[in-house]
């Protein structure tokens, strides 16, 4: 895996210079952190370049780490090279309140529903998304439940006596 990491890191560095912020091996997974503004270019490059050929978007998920000041919110794109059976992850980070992110639905149509889910749970606003609305939660929901400032428990319960719950 370290070979794959070095190979991809080399390519990204040549192409994007300072756009690549870090390249690390997490267990046996090459993880690259890149600048948010070049994410579409990076993914297009990784998809179209014949050497890399990461032609499949496996998953896309949001990250919220409130303790990372200035980079509280993040997105992780997991790519797969079907031919060589290689997997990598690309991450971007952004401060809370700057949740506008370019959509990658033009690269992979499957990103449509994935981006709707990340909008639903974290509130990322994907610019260029054809139909950005909630997908799993009910439409009336007025907050983004996976953000850590919101409690997991249902807020509509009024039968909870703190004494009974040992609090």
């Amino acid at each position, binding site marked *: 895996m370290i070979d794959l990491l070095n190979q991809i890191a080399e390519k990204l560095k040549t192409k994007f210079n300072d756009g690549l912020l870090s390249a690390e091996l997490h267990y046996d997974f090459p993880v690259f952190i890149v600048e948010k503004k070049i994410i579409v270019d990076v993914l297009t490059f990784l998809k179209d370049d014949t050497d890399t050929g990461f032609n499949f978007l496996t998953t896309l998920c949001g990250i919220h780490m409130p303790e990372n000041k200035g980079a509280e919110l993040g997105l992780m794109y997991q790519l797969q090279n079907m031919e060589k059976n290689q997997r990598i992850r690309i991450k971007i980070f952004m401060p809370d309140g700057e949740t506008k992110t370019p959509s990658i639905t033009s690269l992979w149509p499957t990103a449509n529903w994935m981006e709707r889910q990340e909008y639903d749970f974290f509130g990322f606003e994907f610019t260029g998304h054809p139909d950005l609305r909630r997908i*799993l*939660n*009910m439409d009336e*929901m007025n907050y983004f*439940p996976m953000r850590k400032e*919101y409690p*997991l*428990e*249902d*807020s*509509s*319960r009024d039968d909870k006596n703190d004494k009974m719950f040992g609090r």
Partner: protein
Amino acid sequence: MDINIKPENKPEGLEGAGYFATSLDRVVGLARANSLWPLPFATSCCGIEFMATMASHYDLARFGSERLSFSPRQADLLMVMGTISKKMGPILRQVYEQMAEPKWVLSMGACASSGGIFDTYSVLQGIDRIIPVDVYIPGCPPRPEQVLDGILKIQELAKSESIRRRDTPEYKVKLAQYGIE
């Protein structure tokens, strides 16, 4: 061959040689109670337990409910079995509203009755927040015997209620609480 069949108890009434007189309410109640058509609204593991209840070993058909209705318009009893998410809530309510009177609702298991272990933003904390419930069955999931007991409780209700339950003031008040016409 000695077959042990226990006939249904006669309702209260006047009896004499060659006749038996009782009120229409009681006769209709008896007929309704022993021919309930349940609509299984099964969303999770309680639904699996219900399958066992319907199958040969426990055999709900013994109590006159062998005919499941998958159309709410033909059902008498709405059996809600499993976790109901908040997004599912309006659909459950619509199914309830489509049922014709007389109708009863049975809430099976911890999730349908109270949200169960899913005390979370996406799960409805008990179906009685959106539709009136007649009988609750506790358990996670309840055993088939408990489901049978719950159905028998519904039968008791069907037997003892007035023939036009929807005209009773209590029923109207109850439905008004839920905003159902």
